[in-house]
């Protein structure tokens, strides 16, 4: 799977993150208080305004601090009842429809159906759950305020903070129940959809004979099911496996009437798909490069690909990619190091078309420099290839002598080991990224991994609910809906807005061509391509200036507002990798931070609004 940014350890992440959060939170409080003071000053004069803001802050804090769990629960139950009254469970029917008709839209002949089905189900679940809680949260309070039903609540000894938190919790519970039901249904749908078997007909298998006439194995193909078939390769004893197609393979066993090594197979047993719906637990390392002269280099070679995720090393030279793995314990890897890898190939000449590009992998002691003899392999692109580095390794010394060493005694030093990749064929290249090589530390449960991915959706749902409730404390329902969607959209296009603003300020159109909103409109109307520079007329300069002012608040928002897609972990799940707990914990903390902020903002806004008047 593609991992463009390294996931930091939670322990290393939390400290700076908390500091930054406190700083940003304090800054926002100060700015809001200053703004409130300015507004109040125009009405009551600076001294009274200062007093009112101070008292307001104290009251608000007291309000937040003095909340009662019993009252919150009571209000949450009201929110749940309100949701049920609004027939929120209808959405389950909609979800059932989507599941029923998903087969119309999803292509079982896709390159990787597992990834496709997972992506679809998680997206559908996320959209529906978030949409339901969004609608519930933004329309609830405004409706109560308009119908004056809120007076029956606020006239009771209930704090504003409790009203806000009660609704947030109530709607979140509704969303959680929906998510649990949809998630379970989705899981069953995915497992049922991707599971399949193949048959092997006797006429589709050919026997390979060795020069001495003995059976060297069998090769052939499986039946065509679910839009694909596999090539099979069996050993003389009748065991073997298929090739990897659509992201999976099957184990195959020839069934013979007598001795497996002497009798002809009478049938073939094909196992369930392997490689789909997995949860690999990788131990990742850090990557560095050596150039063609064997000198350390910060990066590999670019072969001109637009996407620079992978760097390339030249074959037949001293160029190498070196991963350093840390934290390797003998008890975890008692049988050796199960190395898994994805290697891209770039050919500068045709070479031998029917043969892949060969390479080598060696393991090296990072301290003593002792390295094993190479393990040779042929690159398989876009599939995960595996090499098991055994406990006992052959090492050839300078004088040509070979001796056996133990992996943990001689190669792994202080839990660290280096893995060196080289491409062996001159003028051909290997492309790799840091995440492409890892040690498979174990296998997790796909069901638990799926649940972890649903946790990401849950975080998103909580955020949507909190933002919706916060806006509904001072805006009408439709306006709150638009405001919430705007916040989410700005968060979603965070990177784009940041690049756009940078481009606008620096005048460097290559960062984000096309300009801001007004310039874009101008280009659309005049049919001017985004790659063309506009003549610097007064009108164009004015447009660019206005755009800068329009983009400034969006840039500020992009730095503050949450990005729901950043909370998603579907890529891990679809790629067959265990979702790291560090990532989940960081996402959880980020969500918690936003929830707190939106809760406080909502509580203050509701308190400032005299709803009972």
């Amino acid at each position, binding site marked *: 799977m*593609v991992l463009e940014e390294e996931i930091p350890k939670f322990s290393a992440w939390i400290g700076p993150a908390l500091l930054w959060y406190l700083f940003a939170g304090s800054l926002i409080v100060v700015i809001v208080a200053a703004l409130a003071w300015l507004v109040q000053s125009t009405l009551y004069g600076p001294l009274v305004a200062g007093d009112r803001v101070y008292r307001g802050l104290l009251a608000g804090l007291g309000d937040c601090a003095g909340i009662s769990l019993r009252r919150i629960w009571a209000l949450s139950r009201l929110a749940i009842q309100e949701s049920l009254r609004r027939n929120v469970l209808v959405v389950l029917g909609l979800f059932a429809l989507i599941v029923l008709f998903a087969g119309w*839209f999803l292509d079982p002949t896709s390159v*990787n159906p597992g990834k496709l089905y997972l992506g679809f189900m998680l997206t559908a679940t996320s959209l529906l759950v978030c949409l339901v809680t969004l609608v519930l949260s933004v329309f609830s309070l405004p409706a109560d305020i308009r119908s004056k039903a809120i007076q029956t609540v606020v006239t009771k000894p209930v704090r504003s903070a409790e009203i806000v938190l009660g609704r947030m919790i109530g709607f979140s519970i509704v969303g959680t129940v929906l998510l649990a039901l949809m998630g379970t249904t989705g899981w069953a749908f995915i497992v049922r959809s991707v599971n399949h078997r193949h048959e092997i007909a006797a006429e589709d298998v050919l026997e390979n004979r060795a020069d001495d006439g003995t059976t060297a194995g069998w090769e052939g193909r499986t039946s*065509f099911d679910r839009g694909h078939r596999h090539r099979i390769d069996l050993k003389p004893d009748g065991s073997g496996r298929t090739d990897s197609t659509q992201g999976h393979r099957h184990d195959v066993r020839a069934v013979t009437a007598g001795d497996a090594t002497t009798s002809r197979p009478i049938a073939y047993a094909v196992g369930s798909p392997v490689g789909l719906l997995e949860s690999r637990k990788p131990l990742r390392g850090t990557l560095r490069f050596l150039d063609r002269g064997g000198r350390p280099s910060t990066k590999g070679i670019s072969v001109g690909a637009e*996407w620079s995720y992978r760097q390339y090393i030249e074959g037949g030279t001293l160029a190498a990619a070196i991963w350093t793995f840390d934290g390797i314990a003998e008890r975890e890897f008692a049988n050796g190091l199960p190395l898994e890898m994805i290697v891209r190939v770039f*050919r500068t000449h045709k070479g031998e*078309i*029917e043969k892949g590009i060969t390479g080598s992998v060696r393991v090296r002691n990072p301290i003593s420099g002792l390295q094993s003899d190479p393990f040779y392999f042929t690159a398989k692109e*876009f599939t995960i290839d595996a090499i098991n580095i055994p406990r006992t390794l052959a090492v050839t010394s300078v004088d040509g002598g070979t001796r056996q060493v133990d992996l943990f005694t001689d190669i792994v030093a202080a839990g660290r080991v280096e893995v060196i990749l080289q491409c062996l064929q001159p003028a051909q290249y290997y492309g790799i990224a840091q995440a492409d090589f890892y040690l498979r530390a174990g296998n997790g449960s796909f069901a638990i991994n799926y649940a972890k991915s649903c946790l990401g959706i849950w975080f998103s749902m909580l955020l949507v609910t909190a933002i919706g409730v916060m806006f509904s404390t001072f805006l009408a329902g439709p306006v709150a809906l638009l405001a919430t969607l705007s916040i989410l959209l700005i968060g979603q296009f965070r990177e784009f807005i940041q690049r756009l603003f940078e481009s606008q300020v620096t005048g460097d159109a290559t960062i984000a061509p096309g300009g801001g909103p007004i310039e874009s409109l101008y280009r659309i109307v005049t049919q001017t391509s985004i790659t063309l520079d506009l003549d610097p007329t007064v009108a164009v300069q004015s447009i660019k200036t206005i755009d800068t002012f329009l983009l400034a608040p969006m840039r500020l928002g992009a730095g503050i507002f949450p990005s729901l897609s950043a909370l998603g972990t579907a890529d891990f799940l679809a790629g067959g990798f265990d979702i790291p707990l560090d990532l989940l914990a960081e996402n959880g903390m980020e969500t918690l931070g936003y929830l707190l902020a939106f809760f406080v903002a909502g509580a203050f806004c509701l308190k400032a609004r005299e709803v009972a008047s």
Partner: protein
Amino acid sequence: MSLPDHPQRVLSVQLGAAKTKKGFWLGLHSETLVALVLIAAMLVPLSALSQPADSSSPGGYLARLRTQFGLSQANLGEIDPTSETIRLATLGLKNIAVTLLWDRANHYKKVEDWTNLSATLEQMIKLQPNFYSIWDFQAHNLSYNISVEFDDYHDRYAWVMKGIEFLRQGIAFNQREPRLLGRMGWFIGHKIGKADEKKQYRRLFKADDDFHDRDRPGRTLPERDNWLVAREKYLGAQQLADSGVPLRTTALIFHGEPMMTAINYARSLEQDGTFGPALRDAWTLAGDEMRRYSVREIPTSWDVPIRLGLREAELTRAEQMAAEIEQLLPGQFQALEKLQRESLTTEQENALQTAAIDRTEAEQKMVAQAEATLKVTWPMVASAAPADLRNAAKKLAARYVEAEETAEMIDRYRDIVNYNFWRATCEAEVTEPALRARETAWRAEQEFQNAQLQAAKKSYEESFAAWREVLDAAPVLRADELTAEELAELIARYRMVLEQLDEKLPTPFILQDILDRTSTVAQ
């Protein structure tokens, strides 16, 4: 209580509706009521415009237009309920959705996410199943751009076939679009038969039961050659075009594809080392296709259809016309020439007699004027004919001009597709000497690779002897540069064989003319 003076209120009273004290009618505000009336009024023209057709009625204006131009979904191809559902679900925003999806597809291609790329293409075609460019562009993307991202030729082949299958879907949705069938033929022919991996691709294609079972069950192994399958597609496309479906591409090239595919088929057999009756049949097929192409009517930009094979016939017709005019007005052509000659000034005569290289700029102009004056045509002769014969002469002259112009037009169109060369090739390659020349040349190459030098030398010499016969019989091939280059390469390898045998190229060499020409070009 006095009657309300507001006109709308008057209306509500007249209608006898239940009126509220604020002037509402049936609980509706007056503005709402007006809006509803306007909407109802607009439904009448809307109905006339967009009423769907059914068994008893041709429908509204739009439905009639759709029928007239064959644009209704049922006319275009298969109706896919999924596609219809998705298009409805976009609430008229399908173009925006497709633009976004196109952008996503480019992104997925960039980040090598083939699963999502395929899924995005599926969504795109569901939204715009009758937009030719999506099918063409994205099929090309799959077969040409994405396939090469894979190193294993099996994977490459699988992606080439994905593009071809993508086109098959497109054809199902667009059964009146011959271009898509043509593209499918092109992919099957050229991508499989001309790529670097053509040897592997052609082998995999023949063994691809899944494709052939889907495409035409019962296809025999020899019929599974990619060029023959491509030809089937082109013939299907031609059939469609001949049925009256508009062909939105260059007819000259489109109709030449079956011939080119048959030629490529024969060439592939030669490269595979398949000779004898199979190769003769292949060249016979190519000749048949060439003849079919020759007599096919091709539309031109002058709105006068032509047939490529009829150039010689048109020239003969022109000669006949000229002879008839000559018969009608004996000696008039020469007389007019003489008259024109006499009309030249002394300076013009002198300029004409001056050698071209010695002429001054003024003399060059005079020569140009003199040559224009001296140019006598049959229409000029007809115009100068006596009054009683003039009309008949003019008619003959007009027919002469028509035949001449048609021949010239055919000549231009022939040049575009290199018709003369391909016709000569089809005619020559089926002959016994040509078949022998190819087979011995192939054998010589094999023997050379296997270091059987004496055998290779003998085979090369047999091949050159056969080639001599072929070239002597086909002046077009003798003059053709590509043929000369191909033979020069063969001779170069023959020289290498001779060098290793310590021998020299015999002089004069049997293909000396070719050798001289290619060495001159090389110099």
